[in-house]
């Protein structure tokens, strides 16, 4: 059984990584004005939020089942971005 401390650490680092990636995507949107990057930025913000759920949920390990909604939203954002890109 993984220790909670270790899982927290990994989750935190991953969340930070997602946030930095989202920042890069925003920057790429500013230079290219391609909406795909907004979709990706939103998606990665949601992925970060999912990892940070422990801040708002007292009983976060193992993950509460409803957390999948956040992750689903992230991947829907990515799917929507790809859809939008191929629509035109």
């Amino acid at each position, binding site marked *: 059984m993984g220790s909670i401390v270790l899982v927290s650490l990994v989750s935190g680092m991953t969340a930070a990584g997602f946030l930095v990636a989202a920042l890069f995507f925003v920057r790429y949107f500013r230079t290219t004005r391609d909406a795909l*990057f907004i979709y990706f930025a939103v998606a990665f913000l949601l992925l970060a939020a999912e990892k940070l759920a422990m801040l708002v949920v007292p009983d976060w390990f193992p993950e509460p089942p409803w957390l999948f909604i956040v992750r689903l939203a992230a991947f829907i954002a990515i799917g929507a971005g*790809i859809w939008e*890109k191929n629509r035109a």
Partner: protein
Amino acid sequence: MPDLEVPYEVRQLIAKHLESMEQVEVLLLLARNAPRSWSVSDVASELRWPQRGAQQCLEELSRGSLVRRAGSGAGGGTYEYAPTPGDRDSIATLMHIYDTRPLLLGRLIYDRPPTVARSFADAFRIRHKRGE
């Protein structure tokens, strides 16, 4: 003129502001008729293009420093040719290349290596545009 003799400023101009031959045509239309300002429908009917294509080109051009959006209006606003003084000569050369060496111009526009961001975004295009 061989590729290498295309002046550096012209190649910079293309790299920074011009992504497609359509944009070049709209830009040169505005430049040849300056200082007239054009609406989207004016451009569309002059070039015999659909409205949407003309609108997209004008919007893309107006994000740079070559074309300015002059006013808003029901039809989507009017646009006018508004280059910086430094760009005027380059655009004159561009016009010359367009008139005399269109294939060369096509190569200059479409053969540049894109930025990584551009490549990232283009990777998600499942079917590709011509020229890729």
